[in-house]
């Protein structure tokens, strides 16, 4: 047997086996087979001892070369698998879908409240909340709605007992906050409100508002405009055009409504803005002195502004929802459309 021929065969075998290494496991097998202490090469070194001294140097040299080749191939293979992406022994179908976790969705209304309150919080406002069942005092009287005044018609009320009602606006929280604190008061008041109306695509018996209040010395209508313009630019974009026009709320004087250019038609007039080019986004005004008197604040010392934003309207305009009822029907095929990154 010509040992040189045998070594030649082994060399081929090493190269061929190395070519077939397709995982770390294969590499390890390769190592065990050829390079381990009891591997083929080690065995051949052992067998070499039996050879003639004349053959030894040549065979030894050749074996060393083989060992080097095998080690190199082994190291290369290992490196390939350790540094490159993991490779499986069997090809896998990477188009199989991955294992997912369920995704929870926030409701459009609470999301809108969060976005709006976050803007006011960044302007130094805190959040205050109040009860949904209110007394006549908080819902109307303290807010300067005299009994039997037509202003009460603007807010059809659900009564639940003598003097008790579902609040028709979040404004009563203003009274509670002023009673429980002292100026400066700068709060936003999100919450659910109720109106006793026929439910339709445009109106619901329940909806949400964010009220705002700032009371201190030297608060002016100019401050009100400044704050609300800053809010509108943050929420609707800096390019917006706006207008304030006089309106009436019993608890503010002067009162205003804020309109912005209809962002659907750019002010040219469309179905959504009823061809006016404007969208009403909120009501506001300077706190009426009678409201201050109701909470024993001195109207000659303090002034303040208040505002109220309708959440459903804001959200419906923003997301192109044309039926308010959708918001409380909880068809999850709709709720799940809304993911805010």
């Amino acid at each position, binding site marked *: 047997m010509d040992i040189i021929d045998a070594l030649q065969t082994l060399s081929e075998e090493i190269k061929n086996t190395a070519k077939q290494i397709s995982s770390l496991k294969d590499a390890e097998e390769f190592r065990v087979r050829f390079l381990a202490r009891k591997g083929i090469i080690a065995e051949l070194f052992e067998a070499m001892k039996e050879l003639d001294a004349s053959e030894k140097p040549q065979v030894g040299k050749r074996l060393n070369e083989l060992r080097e080749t095998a080690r190199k191939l082994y190291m290369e293979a290992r490196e390939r698998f350790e540094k490159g992406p993991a490779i499986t022994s069997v090809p896998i179908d990477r188009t199989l879908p991955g294992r997912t976790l*369920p995704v929870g969705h926030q409701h459009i209304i609470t999301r809108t409240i969060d976005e709006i309150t976050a803007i006011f919080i960044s302007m130094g406002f805190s959040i205050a909340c109040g009860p949904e069942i209110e007394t006549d005092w908080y819902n109307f009287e303290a807010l300067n709605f005299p009994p039997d005044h037509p202003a009460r018609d603007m807010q059809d009320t*659900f009564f639940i007992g003598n003097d008790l009602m579902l609040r028709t606006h979040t404004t009563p929280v203003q009274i509670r906050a002023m009673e429980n604190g002292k100026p400066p008061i*700068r709060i936003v008041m999100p919450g659910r409100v109720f109106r006793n109306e026929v439910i339709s695509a445009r109106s619901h018996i329940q909806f949400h508002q964010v009220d705002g209040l700032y009371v201190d010395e030297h608060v002016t*209508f*100019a401050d009100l405009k400044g704050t609300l*313009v800053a809010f509108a630019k943050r929420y609707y974009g800096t390019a917006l055009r706006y207008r304030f*026009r006089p309106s*009436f709320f019993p608890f503010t004087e002067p009162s205003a409504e804020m309109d912005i250019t209809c962002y659907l038609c750019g002010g040219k007039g469309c179905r959504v803005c009823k061809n006016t080019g404007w969208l009403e986004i909120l009501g506001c005004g300077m706190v*009426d002195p009678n409201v201050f008197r109701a909470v024993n604040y001195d109207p000659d010392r303090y*002034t303040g502004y208040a505002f109220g934003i309708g959440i459903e309207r804001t959200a419906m305009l923003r997301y192109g929802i044309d039926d308010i009822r959708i918001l409380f029907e909880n068809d999850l095929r709709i709720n799940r459309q809304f993911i805010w990154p």
Partner: protein
Amino acid sequence: MNISLPWLNDYIDLSESPQEIASILTSIGLEVEEIENTRAAFEGIVVARVLSCKPHPNSNRLHVCTVDGGAGPETVVCGAPNVREGQMVVFARVGSTVPRTGMRVERKEIRGVLSNGMICSSYELGIDEDHSGILVLEENAPLGSPAHEVLSRHDVRFVIGITPNRGDALSHIGVARDLSAVLRRPLRYPVPRFCIEGFGEALPIHIEDAMLCSRYSAARIRGVKIRPSPAWLRNAVENVGLRSINNIVDTTNFVMFEIGQPMHAFDLHKLEGPRILVRAAGEGERFTTLDGVERTLPQGAVLICDGEKPVALGGIMGGMNSEISNDTTEVLLESASFNPTITRRTSRRLLLASESSFRFERGTDPSRTVWALQRAIDIITDTAGGEVCGISDIITMPVCQRTVALDPQNCERILGYHVEPESIREILEFLEFHLDIVNGVFHCTVPPFRNDIEREIDLIEEIARISGYDNIPVPERMTLHAAPPYNDEAFRSACRRAAITCGFDEILSPTLIERKYAHASPVEGVIEVLNPVNTERPCLRPSLMPSMMETVSRNLRCGIRTLRIFEIGTIFIDTAPSEKRSFDSIRQKTAIAFALTGYAEERSWYSRERPFDFFDLKGLLTTFFTHLHLENKIRFNYDGQKSSSELALSLEIDGNSLGELKELSQYVRKLYDIDQPVYYAEFDLDLIERYQETSLKFVPVSRYPMVRRDLSFIVPENVETGDIIEMVKSLGIKILRDIALLDVFRHEDFGVGNKSIAITLSMQSDTSTLTDHEINMVVMTVVERIEKTFSASLRSTESTRLPGKG
């Protein structure tokens, strides 16, 4: 309210375009909701001649006509019975819009004949209700000219939303007055010709209570002829959206829309006496109003009576029994001032509102009743003939003139910018305030029609309104205050985020629910609203469950089979019987509810379908509370239900019950028509909030290795794993850092009635690497106690030493 632009021009010169005027009105608080341009509505509608008219070949009823509207003959199919050759008619060309219906006129084939337009009836043109045939014009009507000119229907009108404080603006003069202040242009009051001096009393008038009516002015006119109104009067009332009735009624409406004073005309011969008594309605009194409806009046309603019976519901509507008819020859004109509050109450109670009640509720000008009479007399004597034979004017409460002082500096204090005193003076004078300026302070006598002006702030609003809110500067900077913390809402937001992170979808559902659902929950003290418009849902939810289950049910029907939903909302429970209900007896609590139904794992290439079970909800809640960092404060309370086969568990925090989680019963599922298992939990969020973690502190971690030992025991079936864990924890072994359940399983080798429970102990010291001895001591103690307490026997142990940095 409708305001006609040409009518406004009677009192102020307006050269601005309708759009410009609308924008001014809106900018001063008289919001123009719509500009109705009847001229535009008549686009493409012209006067035409019927050149020929033949029967339709395929119809007995229809005609085929040729008409010429000035642009050559067109063939038109017409169904009107009165169409004839040679008539002058109103012709709507193809592409025009029918004014009444808003329908577009199209070229279309009618029974085989192509029709190129439409001959209109006066109904279709919006003129009256007559749709018996086409409108036939006079012979000399100018062919081809726009129809609105011939029909005098070229008005522009504004639909204005008047806020409830502005009773003074409910008339053309009222609106013109505001415009005169903005435009600094004079306002022209019409000057009545009729002079009231030298007349005797119209009839005896008695007002029972001054509260009902502060002034009652009346004129008696005899020899009138009831006729259709002349064109100008008819157009005027129609242009503000009223129906023209006859010359007398139209006159009263005209004056109301001119000055804002509601008026009423009685047929004098139908009044017993004749005399007038103004009194309050008694309990249960009945009366038939002009609209033919017999109504039971609320006590205290203002009744106008003659010598024996009620003849009008004061301030709201006249009566059938004294109505003007075609035979009326003598009328009594009423121009009074009724109590706003009583008018409103009566109108609300009867659900009967009129142009008149709308104005009285908001307050009319009591100083104008006689002026209004004079105006009406002028128009009536012009259009109906007759002569005045008596004037009465009873005043029970004199108009008190209010004076309000305005310090111009306070304008700046409120508005934030300087308004020139000269400009303040001008504005107030145009609004008809009388001013005395003393030491720079404006003492303003309020005109009697401005009942909304009582205080300085009201005057400041007038200044701001007329100067324009646009003049108020927008500051670039704002002051900030250190804001106090706001925990309630922040905590609710945190809960919301936690639930969403756990994979739940948020829902918001109605607060008002159906009675059958409200009472299905075991809660006592359901509150109902007393006056719901929607009577199907009168109950305030005592729990979030009904609306959650409605949501589950609805979605299952929509083909969604897996739901994980949650809601945060207020629930209401009355702790007192409803007759003793008060604000304090009602509990208004914030609750959070969770529901799971369907599949925890959908069938997929890597897993089999697995329906949700009780432990999915228990685990998700544990995760939820961990997100809130409350995992160590919340306790599942097994008492009473332990070892029970009922799938329910209550939760508590610091010994207070929070609520429970459970699988819903068949009964509840059936109520909501749900036929798959639903797992539900509801908790008191206000209570949880009190325990929220507000201070987080760093705790150093051990540098020494953690050792794990797995132990498995064979225990009798009735031993509960939770008890084993609790017991081991209660040993208080310092180096025992954690104990967790690994698995539970049953095998015949363990013997009938036994199971295997495997736990893992994690041990670590802060001061050294644990020695085998220390570890074994702990393991031995634990094994011994478990074996002793639970009649358990150790099956196997296994240990792992995890690397530490020591």
